[in-house]
């Protein structure tokens, strides 16, 4: 139940993120979630989009440095402490999170956390046993 995330290496300069989004927009790629990590002079943009393979091809063709990574998308109740519960389940089993970002689904009462962990398969089992819903790729792409 992994979701494909598109990561793009971007130099830290004005207009570069716009160029990325512009290319995706012109090619009919719709973003579901977006997160930007930054170092001193570069950043990594991480996205979940409706058509990851197509986005990958388009971006590479446009000269971007792209990586595809598997992440978990977990549904969490959109209430105080919702994310903490998910993280608690992972912590108890020693799963380490490399990065995570949250987004709210259109329906409103649930939020979704996209996370990259060190042991992807274990984490999925851990979360499901703990009663969380791990979303399928289709669930996420078609949000």
């Amino acid at each position, binding site marked *: 139940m992994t979701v494909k995330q598109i990561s793009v290496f971007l130099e830290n300069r004005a207009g570069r993120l716009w160029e990325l989004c512009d290319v995706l927009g012109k090619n009919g790629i719709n973003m579901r979630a977006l997160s930007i*990590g930054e*170092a001193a002079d*570069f950043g990594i943009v991480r996205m979940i989009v409706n058509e990851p393979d197509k986005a990958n091809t388009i971006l590479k063709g446009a000269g971007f440095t792209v*990586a595809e990574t598997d992440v978990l998308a977990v549904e969490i109740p959109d209430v105080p402490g919702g994310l903490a519960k998910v993280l608690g389940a992972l912590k108890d089993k020693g799963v380490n999170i490399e990065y995570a970002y949250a987004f709210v689904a259109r329906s409103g009462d649930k939020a979704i956390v996209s996370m990259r962990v060190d042991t992807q398969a274990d984490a999925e089992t851990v979360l499901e046993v703990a009663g969380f819903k791990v979303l399928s790729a289709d669930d996420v792409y078609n949000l």
Partner: protein
Amino acid sequence: MIWNAEYESMKREDIRELQLRRLQWIVKWVNERVPAYKKKLDKAGVKPSDIKTLEDSTKLPFTTKDDLMEDYPFGFFALPMSKVVRIHSTSGTTGDPVVVGYSRGDINTWAEVTARVAAGGGVTEDDVIQVSFGYGLFTGGFGMHYGVERVGATVIPVSAGNTERQIMIMQNLKTTGLICTPSYALHMSEVAAKMGVDMRSMPLRIALFGAEPWSEGMRKEIEERLGVMATDNYGLSEIMGPGVAFECEQKNGLHISEDHFLPEVIDPETGEQLPMGETGELAFTTLTKEAFPMIRYRTKDLTSFIAEPCECGRTLIRMARVQGRTDDMLIIRGVNVFPSQIEHVLTEIEGVEPQYQIVLTREGTMDQIEVWVEVSQAVFPDAMRKLVEFERDIENRLYNVLGLHAKVKLVEPNSIERTAGKAKRVVDRRGN
């Protein structure tokens, strides 16, 4: 002040006569004692007895750094180790370092020529001179030390580094003269300002700079900030170290100690001597060196001679300040760096595109070197931590090879400017 007027202000025809005698001696000396030279002379078909006039020196073969590296470390020594009292060495930025040796007589000559540098730069026996060149295998520290001592000034052999301590020493011991690289002097002035110390109000009055190229603009800035008279001097380990040439108080070209070093300006392509005043590659023949004599050693430094006599009274010919290099060597904070070294490091790292760019900037007063590296699609790791580690790893590898910190900046593939398909390797934004 002229240290040794007998030689520094000798009549031109007398200098030439002296040079010829010494040239005849040195050619005989290397022919008898250095098999590598004997081979070179035989190959060129030159016998010591063929040197009848100074112009005959052009019959002699050139010596290059490659020759020296081929016979590393002692192939060009003309004396056995029992007669060698000192070893110095270049940093070896392009392969093997060049190891140079000095006899007792050479050490004496070195002190003589650096005493001329000191006196030319205004040092007298009343001065307290802080030598902030590194003391060690580098010729700068020890070379200037003995010259300053010979003039009779007080030497503070503080060596390089620890800038705050340097400034404290300067204040407490009432230093009147500073010897270092010009960029380090500027750095000192910045650190001093941060410490709340005004270098202009110190007893410091003169500064003698060498080991890296600098500009007239930089001289004005240093003189202004430090409240000193700043002079330039020139030397290289293969020939002697500091002491080969120096500015006098006229600050208009560097006098070459021609009684010890026979200079030529040649066309770097053809090796032909160039007419007076034209810019070309500087080459030297050592006229008195016993342990490590050099015949027509090509410095790769570009300069020109100044024919007009200097107002200071010295008759020693002057060379203009070094205007560049025949190779692509960069000098960063006094450290020699070749783009090829950086390229070599990068090619050994997986995931780095062969495209890179070296960007030189000046942060405040210190030269900075950045290496822009294109990240490869093939190994782009999604994790930020890995990318940062990747940058650090390249920086560490560069440090191990260059001996100075280069900042690595990862950039996108194809983002480095290419000129006609070939990337532009060096961008110098230091703006001298």
